[in-house]
């Protein structure tokens, strides 16, 4: 069996196992798994509205997945997507309400503000990693909570003690009248094009530029890269900054597209953590991220239909996603069994 085939089989098997475990959980809890998955299916593809909302959900997942995947390619684990997303969300909303500009300036301004905010939030762990060898996982986790409290405090300041910034100006909105008309007034917005463009951008940076080559080289072997004359520290910081910018853009999707405002939050959105799942399933490649985001975005949105149609709590899908991550992470075992099965076949 070729290595490439195994690399594709591991995530596929993980997804199947995840869905299987989900079915078993439903069965044990006294629910009907067939009705459950049928409700999930209808929640995703049931009608034009559901499809529109599903694509809407996929949009930030694409960017969160890119964010995690990009850092991974340089050997960094950006678990701080949640925080970078929140600061991006706030930055975009703030620019959206504070300025009154023509759309062709306002909208890009708001989007870039979100990317910069996310990039700044990624810069700190990158800098600490590069200069002081501090593990980025610890710093990004802490930065998540600092982001949560900081954006909540800022929203209070902006709204004079309220817990919502108020709706952004129409000139900064990604809302799409066309998408609304074809998807029965779902919240699907133009952000999906930005997300797909970013997928292309990531592919371009990684595969077609010297910078991308260096970033990947550092991910493969720091010492060899250094020996070859690359600036490892610079690449680590750059990788975290770009990763943070992707995450900030995911926040912009929520701010300018889906919600049109930023509000005080009691906890994280979960998009950042699901981004880890997306990147992992997509083997950190741009194309893989599309598959991962489509799968997890669909599952996440479709699940909302499960309580209504089948009476099953939505959390069942979070269980499935967690199990999928778990199995992908344990890819070693799946690979082991695949190889064993393969050897048996060859022996015959």
């Amino acid at each position, binding site marked *: 069996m070729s290595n490439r085939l195994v690399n594709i089989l591991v995530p596929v098997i993980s997804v199947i196992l995840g869905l299987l475990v989900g079915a078993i959980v439903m069965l044990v809890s006294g629910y009907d798994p067939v009705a459950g998955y049928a409700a999930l299916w209808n929640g995703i593809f049931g009608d034009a509205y559901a499809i529109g909302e599903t694509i809407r959900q996929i949009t930030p997942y694409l960017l969160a997945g890119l964010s995690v995947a990009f850092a991974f390619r340089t050997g960094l684990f950006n678990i701080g997507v949640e925080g970078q997303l929140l600061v991006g969300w706030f930055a975009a909303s703030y620019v959206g309400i504070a300025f009154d500009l023509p759309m062709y300036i306002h909208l890009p301004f708001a989007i870039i503000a979100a990317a910069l905010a996310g990039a700044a939030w990624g810069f700190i762990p990158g800098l600490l990693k590069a200069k002081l060898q501090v593990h980025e996982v610890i710093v990004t986790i802490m930065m998540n909570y600092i982001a949560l409290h900081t954006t909540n405090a800022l929203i209070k300041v902006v709204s004079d003690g309220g817990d919502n910034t108020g709706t952004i100006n129409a000139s900064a909105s990604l809302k799409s009248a066309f998408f609304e008309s074809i998807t029965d007034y779902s919240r699907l917005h133009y952000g999906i094009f930005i997300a797909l463009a970013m997928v292309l951008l990531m592919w371009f940076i990684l595969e077609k530029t010297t910078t991308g080559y260096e970033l990947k080289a550092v991910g493969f072997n720091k010492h060899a890269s250094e020996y070859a004359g690359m600036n490892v520290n610079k690449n680590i910081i750059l990788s975290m900054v770009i990763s943070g910018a992707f995450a900030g853009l995911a926040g912009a999707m929520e701010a300018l597209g889906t919600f049109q405002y930023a509000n005080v939050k009691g906890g994280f959105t979960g998009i950042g953590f699901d981004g880890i799942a997306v990147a992992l399933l997509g083997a950190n490649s741009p194309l893989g991220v599309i598959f991962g985001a489509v799968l997890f975005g669909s599952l996440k949105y479709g699940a909302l239909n499960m309580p209504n149609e089948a009476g099953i709590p939505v959390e069942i899908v979070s269980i499935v996603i967690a199990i999928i991550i*778990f199995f992908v992470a*344990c890819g070693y075992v799946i690979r082991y069994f695949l190889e064993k099965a393969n050897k048996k076949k060859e022996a015959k």
Partner: protein
Amino acid sequence: MSFLDVLYFIVPSAIFYAAPLIFVAIGGVFSERSGVINIGLEGLMVMGAFIGILFNLMFVDTFGAMTPWFAIIAAMVVSGLFSVMHAVASISFRADQTISGVAINMLGVAIALFSVKLIYGKGQTDYIQERFIRFDIPLLSDIPVIGPMFFKDVYGTSILAIGVAVMAWFVIYKTPFGLRLRAVGEHPMAADTMGVNVTKMRYIAVILSGALAGIGGAVYSQSISGEFSHTTINGQGFMALAAMIFGKWHPLGALGAALFFGFAQALSIIGGEIPYVKEVPTYFLHILPYALTILAVAGFIGKAHAPKASGIPYIKGKR
């Protein structure tokens, strides 16, 4: 309010908020000292909080006032079992330990909420009737100054938490088991050569961390929140992780850090009633633990070193 009154007010609440963090942070110390990163503490704590409330609600008629204590045992067992998943993934299956931890966090929350909806048909449980109760320690509480600060209105769980931390210090630094644990976390191959079973030690450590995180969760839910919903445990596990790192992977350091973070939490909640403190925006108190942890790992507050082998699966025969 005089300065002493402020202390009488703030010190007991600081210890009260710190108790769950201490359990979980000590759990983290065990796991990381054996070389297994456990960012799944949050999920394990969620599981403990849920099981604590569930057990309490189900068996309150049987055990009466002792229910919370039995509930933490139940939570300890369930979270201990749950952590086996992390152990299998990160020790036997050589999974990336951080990713496995992320999966544990997601799974803990998902299973707990799924079960709440399954059992109660709504997003949160009822409030428990029997919580942990405070009591005065006889004689000690009569000591002037120290008495009202530390020995009046104390929770049994707080005493247990501090006891566990001291015990963990003794186990890790004064027993052969502790020496092996540290050896496995610093240089597993050397430990293996000397006949220490690396896999077994790591399994024990991870399960211990799960059990302690379960206790921490159950203590939190039964003394602070009184019910279980999706917001009950909201970053407490990560704060405990921060306490462990801020405490430099040392049980007593983790104890001190957890007490300090408990103090910050208490200030952010009751600070409005204390002169001067109420002038400080709660925002700064909220971010204090996290900001300090970043400074600590960055080496601005002394040097902190993670165990050398943490995060690396041990593969026999591989150099």
